């Protein structure tokens, strides 16, 4: 059906086209920061245009390629991209491809046929198609790898990276690797490859695959040939299909693809990323801070010392001032004191001189009044008075002089007080200064000692913190490595599981086919054998049927004859037994009543009271019993429990069980009759005892009946043994006679 623009299917396919366009366009938008990625993006964009146009043929399911086998969307996308690259970007490749596939549709069909291996035609054509299929797979692998790289490097645009947070960058890489769904791939690498490519190309790389070496920039529509050159797309490079990340080396093997994203070594990347994790060493900072604190302490101490010195200087000045003021005050007071004291001395001296002068004047006046003295009486007295007056005047002056001297001594002592007090004050001030200085120095020493201890402690804590950080980092790295190993193992397991699934499916299909063939053959063989067996069975069945009918007829005839004889004999025996029983009954009744009662095993008194009818009924009953049980030892030999039971058919069957048990006691205690009798009595006593689990107790009459039955049976046993011995003796004697 030709495509009709605006058709409903076209509208429906638009959503798919938008999705694909967004997917590829998004990928191209995400790699714009990388030159190689931009090249990839441009190629992808061109491929997208062709893909969209080509998708119009196949995407709606109603395009002009109805003959294309149903393939997955991924296959169709690969085919469409390959066709787009071939048709639009490289005419030469298109020409070469056209030589092998004249039309685009048949080329795609050939690709799919090559993939599915169902292409029909000549061997050469199939080989060519297989080769193209391999080439297409290789190209798809390359494209997918590039797409993966684009997706992985979509986060390499530093959009989410800070460059200073390696942990966050690693987390981004890991998240990209873990969360990039396989469905985004175009038949390319699985989740394993995506994770590995993303994780093994961390943002710090920031370069396209093979950037360390100069990548081979092949024109669009060509691929590297592994030898440094390019080969057109669609040109088979041998029949070698190389794994992802490798290209044919042209020599029959595979070589690493220089354009591929490098060999994924996640473990090395993890080690590298975690190796970037480091913590800052604050040891020097701690030392510097401690040194600053030491400097500050010394500065504070110096300030205190300076302040103390200033204080001491101020106090020293104050002491000097006080001393000076005190000296001044004392000087003034002492000068006043000295003045007053000198006035007193002067006054005393003046008065003494006046007294002496008055005495002298009085003596002169007395001499003048006496005139010429005729004796020395007056002169002796005058001499004494004059000398006494002089002595007293001198004494008064000397006394005041002594007092003044003493006062001057005291004054000198008091005047020396300021200097002494100032000296003492300065001494005390010096002592206090010394004490303060000592205290400051002691405090400084203690603070410095504490500072050293604290510095040591802080540095040790810093070292321990760094060690803990390293331990934690190593632990996380180990966890990441273990996680990577688990992831790889899981992926390998899943891959192996998938491979096993595929192998299983293939094997199952093959087994199914084999089974079907074998089943068909077996069916045929079974049908043939069944027919032959059926025929043989029919023949054998007919023969057997005839033989069976013959033998059955003969057996039936024989059986009827024997049965008639048996019946006749039985009837004869029954009649004979009945006759014998009747005879015995008549003989017993004819003998006497006791014999009859013993025969019928009833009391003789009872027998006597019976009427004729009753005796008739008892007789018939006895005869019938004898007929059924046999007479004598014909049915059951004497001395057996059955014989005893036949004799007393109307007794409780449990009685015979107890009789049998008592007989068993005799058997177990053979040769010890007393012990056996004791045990039998105990057994009967036990029968009379009421069982706590149920009513078992028998009456004395019932146990007496059991004991009577036992005695009869025991007597029968003894009698039968005696008869047997007699018969044996008779036989032996008969044998002896015959000899």
């Amino acid at each position, binding site marked *: 059906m030709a495509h009709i623009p605006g058709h409903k299917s076209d509208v429906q396919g638009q959503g798919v086209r938008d999705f694909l366009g967004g997917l590829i366009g998004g990928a191209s938008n995400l790699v714009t920061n990388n030159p190689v990625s931009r090249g990839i993006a441009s190629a992808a964009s061109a491929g997208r245009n062709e893909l969209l146009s080509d998708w119009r043929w196949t995407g709606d399911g109603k395009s002009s390629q109805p003959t294309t086998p149903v393939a997955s969307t991924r296959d169709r996308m690969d085919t469409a991209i390959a066709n787009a690259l071939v048709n639009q970007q490289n005419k030469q490749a298109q020409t070469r491809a056209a030589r092998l596939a004249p039309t685009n549709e048949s080329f795609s069909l050939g690709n799919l046929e090559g993939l599915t291996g169902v292409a029909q035609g000549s061997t050469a054509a199939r080989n060519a198609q297989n080769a193209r299929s391999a080439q297409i797979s290789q190209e798809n692998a390359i494209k997918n790898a590039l797409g993966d790289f684009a997706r992985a490097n979509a986060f390499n645009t530093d959009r989410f990276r800070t460059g200073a947070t390696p942990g966050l960058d690693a987390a981004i890489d890991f998240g990209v690797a873990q969360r990039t769904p396989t469905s985004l791939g175009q038949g390319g690498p699985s989740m394993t490859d995506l994770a590995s490519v993303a994780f093994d190309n961390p943002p710090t790389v920031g370069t396209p695959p093979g950037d360390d070496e100069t990548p081979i920039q092949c024109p669009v529509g060509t691929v590297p040939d592994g030898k440094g050159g390019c080969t057109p797309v669609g040109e088979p490079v041998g029949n070698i299909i190389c794994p992802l990340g490798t290209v044919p080396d042209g020599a029959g093997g595979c070589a690493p693809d220089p354009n591929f994203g490098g060999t994924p070594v996640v473990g090395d990347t993890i080690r590298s990323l975690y190796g970037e994790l480091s913590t800052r060493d604050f040891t020097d900072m701690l030392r510097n801070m401690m040194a600053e604190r030491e400097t500050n302490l010394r500065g504070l101490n110096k300030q205190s010392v300076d302040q103390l010195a200033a204080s001491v200087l101020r106090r020293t000045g104050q002491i000097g001032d006080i001393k000076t003021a*005190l000296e001044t005050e*004392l000087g003034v007071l002492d000068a006043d*004191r000295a003045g007053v004291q000198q006035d007193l001395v002067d006054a005393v001296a003046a008065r003494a001189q006046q007294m002496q002068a008055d005495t002298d004047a009085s003596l002169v006046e007395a001499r003048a009044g006496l005139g010429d*003295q005729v004796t020395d*009486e007056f002169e002796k007295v005058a001499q004494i008075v004059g000398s006494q007056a002089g002595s007293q005047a001198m004494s*008064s002056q000397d006394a005041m002089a002594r007092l003044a001297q003493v006062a001057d001594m005291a004054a000198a002592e*008091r005047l020396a007080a300021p200097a002494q*007090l100032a000296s003492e004050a300065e001494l005390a001030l010096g002592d*206090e200064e010394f004490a*303060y200085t000592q205290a400051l120095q002691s405090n400084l020493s203690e603070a410095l000692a504490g500072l050293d201890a604290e510095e040591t402690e802080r540095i040790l804590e810093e070292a321990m913190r760094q060690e803990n950080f390293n331990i934690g980092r190593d632990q996380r790295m180990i966890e990441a490595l273990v996680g990577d190993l688990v992831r790889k193992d899981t992926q390998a397991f899943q891959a192996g599981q998938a491979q096993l699934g595929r192998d299983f499916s293939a094997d199952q299909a093959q087994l199914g086919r084999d089974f079907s063939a074998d089943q068909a053959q077996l069916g045929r063989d079974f049908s043939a054998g069944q027919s032959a067996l059926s025929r043989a069975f029919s023949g054998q069945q007919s023969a057997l049927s005839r033989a069976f009918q013959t033998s059955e007829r003969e057996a039936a005839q024989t059986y009827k004859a024997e049965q008639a004889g048996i019946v006749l004999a039985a009837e004869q025996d029954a009649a004979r037994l009945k006759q014998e029983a009747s005879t015995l009954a008549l003989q017993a009744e004819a003998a006497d009543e006791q014999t009859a009662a013993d025969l019928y095993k009833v009391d003789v008194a009872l027998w006597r009271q019976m009427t004729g009818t009753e005796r008739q009924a008892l007789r018939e009953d006895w005869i019938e019993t004898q007929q059924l049980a046999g007479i004598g030892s014909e049915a059951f030999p004497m001395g057996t429990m059955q014989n005893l039971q036949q004799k007393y058919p109307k007794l409780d069957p449990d009685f015979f069980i107890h009789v049998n048990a008592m007989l068993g006691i005799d058997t177990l205690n053979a040769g010890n009759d007393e012990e056996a009798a004791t045990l039998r009595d105990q057994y009967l006593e036990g029968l009379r005892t009421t069982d706590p689990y149920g009513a078992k107790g028998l009456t004395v009459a019932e146990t007496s009946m059991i004991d009577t039955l036992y005695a009869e049976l025991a007597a029968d046993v003894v009698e039968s043994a005696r008869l047997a011995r007699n018969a044996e003796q008779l036989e032996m004697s008969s044998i002896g006679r015959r000899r």
Partner: protein
Amino acid sequence: MAYAGYGDRASSLGRQTREYGYGLSDIQRAKERIGRSDAMNKFNVEQQVGRAARSLPGAFNRRGMIDSGQFKRAQEISAGEAELARFGVAAQTEEARRQLDQQRNLLEEQLYGSQIEDQIANALRRFAIAQTVGGLA
């Protein structure tokens, strides 16, 4: 170190002033009393000397010895005794005044000594404050 405060100093100054004033007053009063005693003693001595001088010529005249040498001798002895009496009064007065001067000297010594001690005590209080850096360091 204990030292006198303002209250102690004020009471001490009052006491010193009172003692000095009273002491000075007592000395002055004693000095005046000594002056009066001296004047009375001198007057009595002069009265006795005058009476002896007037009675001596009569006594020698009655004996008829007024013109003798004995009378002259008695006049010389009497003049000597008069001088001794005058000196005794003067010496007694001088001795009393010397005692007052000594008391005055002691009083002045006490006054200035107390004032100086007060000054020293005040200086000691200031020294006690100035010899510590507890309030400054």
